[in-house]
């Protein structure tokens, strides 16, 4: 019964004092959110700290939560804001400096994944993760929001506070770079 409830219902129930609703919500989103944070910051300790802090924000916001969209859009927006605080506190200004133009993206070729990597899944994953870590923060975030949060381009734009076109370009650029990393032999 409880597991069939939507994220938004669970959050509202938790806001009314239903602790079990929060537990269900947490179990649904803990792994994607943790991966999102871990891959963004690249450090387990920092990721755990941010992860815990993120969920505390959710807990503290329970009384004010209103359904204005998907819970995932809201919670990843909270995660984004927490990340921005972290970047600012640690002098990582690169997040906002990587604004790609459509013209640059138009020039990127649609790289093919190498045949041997199609067979060697493990190596392909390693190559992908390595390339992901090399991406600019904003591009990586756009890719992770799509993969972990299952957000659309519009939702990514809303969660990160940018225009739809910017969000789309970031995502395209990230995908192009990742495919490129899988297409060539290292």
């Amino acid at each position, binding site marked *: 019964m409880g597991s069939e409830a939507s994220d938004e219902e669970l959050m509202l129930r*938790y806001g009314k004092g239903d602790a079990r609703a929060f537990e269900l919500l947490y179990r649904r989103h803990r792994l994607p959110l943790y991966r999102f944070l871990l891959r963004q910051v690249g450090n387990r300790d920092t990721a755990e700290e941010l992860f815990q802090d993120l969920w505390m924000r959710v807990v503290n916001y329970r009384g004010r939560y209103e359904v204005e969209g998907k819970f995932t859009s809201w919670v990843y927006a909270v995660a984004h804001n927490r990340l921005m605080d972290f970047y600012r506190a640690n002098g990582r200004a690169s997040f906002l400096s990587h604004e790609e133009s459509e013209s640059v993206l138009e020039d990127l070729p649609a790289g093919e*994944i190498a045949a041997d990597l199609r067979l060697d899944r493990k190596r392909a994953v390693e190559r*992908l*993760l390595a390339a992901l870590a090399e991406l600019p923060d904003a591009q990586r975030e756009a890719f992770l929001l799509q*993969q972990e949060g299952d957000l659309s381009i519009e939702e990514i734009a809303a969660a990160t506070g940018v225009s739809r076109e910017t969000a789309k370009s970031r*995502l395209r650029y990230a995908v192009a770079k*990742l495919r490129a990393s*899988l297409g060539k032999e290292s």
Partner: protein
Amino acid sequence: MIEPRDEELSRIYRDAEEPRPPQRVDGNIIAASQRVAGTRPRPAGIRFARRWGTPAALAATVLVTFTLTLMVFERESDLDTTAPEAPPADRPAKVSPAEPRRADQSAKFSPAKPQRAAPATPIPQAAARRDRAEQRPGKGAATSERLGTGQPAFVPEVPRTSEGLRKSEAAKPAPAAPVSDAPNASELRQQAPPTPAAAPAEGALSESAATPQGSSVAAAIANRVAVPEAKERTPEKWLEDIRKLRTEGKATEAERELAEFKKRYPDYRFPEDMR
């Protein structure tokens, strides 16, 4: 052209090892969520309580304090008004023409104009109630006033006059002389000649006592006033006074006094001249 969502890339990404948050972190978060869940079930109510809790508590405190203060004040006032109910019997009678009680008394002595004898009384109803209370047998005037009228402001005035003294004495048990022995209003009316006009209260009484015509009235009054005084006099002094009355030729008064004396001291061994 690159597609916004690359399914092949997504499949490779999903094959990656899934890092998990440590159980410690899970425990912390769940525990924190449960800890606060019960404490804030209705945020609107909490906000209301936060906003109005302090003013409401202050208002309640002020109300309780005021109520308690009022109760204490009322209790003290009640004590103040009930305390003088039983004044000392030897308290001198105060002459106050404006007092309604004087009007009652002068009405008894001046039957020709009883209405005029009631000047502007502050609370005539209270005076009437006092009269009614006076007629009740076996009940103290002060007590009946207090219970009947519920106007404690009048209670302390009662013993100021000889009438009040008489009432006070009537309320007291023996050895005081019974009030019924004192002449009643009809007796006094028979004894006293009609006065031309009702004089204001005590002044009229003093004047009538000074004239020869009013001597019997004065005697009656003296007799009534003497009741509380008798309490003070020793038997010897009382007999001495009776002798004095006899020598002054006031035989009637002397006999009356003697009768009073015998009632008061029935087993007294009288001297020869008094037998």
